[in-house]
């Protein structure tokens, strides 16, 4: 296995060639915030929170989709990056309708946690208050587009892990939204196996169990990792 050496936040790091910058950053003991990324799913760089600065490059790059190169010098927490990350979180909050107090995910929400991490005590951007709807046609689960940040974890887990490909991203620009089937009611899409993986990986309260009341939704991304681990190594007993 060939090795790449690079410098992350003034520390020398050696990782396998072909690793992503995000993997290298984590192996170096550093941490960058992530939201759309989830171990076990393909990276898409949708949220842009993992952006880092490279010496000699004017533009920051998303660590989750950038492959390490020999001699890279990486900075993960410059004031410019901190400012960009806070702005990104503010954009996510103001772009949809996130009412933490009454949300099923209140207290267990990755978006809410990241707001704390980036120091967001208010939004400097105006709230858009868009008109969005819910899909409660599935017998067990619900989808509230008000809380969706289009991270596409649900799209990827359904396609890559469950193999059902119920979800996609439909429409364009501010009208973008997660769609079931060909923009049909979720409950009318036969391909859905009702496995609930999309609900377990959703970082906010957008996808939820119908019985969940406020603060009752618990995400379970670790179950996905356990399943992938079991499939890869044919080890089904923990």
């Amino acid at each position: 296995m060939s090795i790449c050496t690079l410098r992350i936040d003034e520390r020398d790091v050696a990782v396998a060639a072909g690793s992503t910058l995000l993997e290298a950053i984590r192996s170096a003991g550093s941490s960058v915030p992530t939201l759309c990324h989830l171990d076990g799913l393909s990276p898409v760089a949708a949220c842009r929170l993992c952006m880092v600065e490279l010496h000699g490059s004017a533009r920051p790059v998303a660590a989750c989709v950038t492959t390490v190169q020999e001699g890279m010098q990486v900075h993960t927490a410059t004031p410019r990056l901190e400012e960009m990350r806070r702005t990104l979180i503010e954009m996510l909050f103001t772009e949809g309708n996130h009412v933490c107090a009454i949300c099923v995910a209140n207290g267990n929400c990755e978006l809410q946690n990241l707001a704390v991490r980036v120091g967001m005590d208010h939004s400097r951007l105006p709230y858009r208050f868009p008109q969005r709807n819910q899909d409660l046609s599935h017998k067990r689960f619900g989808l509230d587009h008000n809380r969706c940040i289009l991270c596409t974890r649900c799209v990827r887990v359904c396609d890559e892990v469950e193999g059902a490909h119920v979800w996609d991203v439909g429409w364009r620009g501010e009208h973008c939204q997660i769609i079931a089937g060909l923009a049909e009611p979720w409950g009318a899409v036969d391909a859905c196996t009702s496995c609930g993986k999309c609900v377990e990986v959703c970082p906010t309260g957008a996808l939820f169990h119908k019985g969940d009341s406020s603060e009752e939704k618990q995400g379970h991304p670790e179950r996905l990792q356990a399943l992938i681990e079991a499939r890869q190594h044919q080890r089904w007993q923990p």
Partner: protein
Amino acid sequence: MSGHATRRKRLATVWLAGCSGCHMSFLDLDSWLIELAQQADVVYSPIGSDQKEFPSDVDIVLVEGGVANTDNLELLMQVRSNSKVLVSFGDCAITANIPGMRNMLQGSDPVLRRAYLELADGSAQLPDAPGIVPDLLDQVLPVHALVPVDVYLPGCPPSAARIRAVLEPLLNDQQPQLRGSDQIRFG
């Protein structure tokens, strides 16, 4: 500042479009309220004063709630011009929060029609009492969308400990520094 440092602070609290939960949380300060009363005069507050008009020369004001109607807006303008430090108090003041959910209906007219006509049981009529019932603004807005805010105190409601973490430094002419899950988490 030294000449003013020992002067008792003039403290006010204001209730705009919110549930008053932030004020209830203020009352959860319990015995610290006695210490507060030794350092500050409560010059205007729905829970601590019978004063009807917002006074002048207020040092610290906690503003709970979003700005939903013409009364809220008028009071907020008075609050801003009469106060040194304005604290945006709770999620409704900072994000519009639950009162702001009506903004998703895109305007005050659909909201009034839904509440007073479509859901009425026999006595359907839109409220119309000029000068008595304030008009709804088209959108419920966060306080800082309308006037400059000096300190943000998030939470629904902010805990008593958070409120104290803001008031203690302000009473000593210092800027509060809130951070971390215990102090700035929404919800």
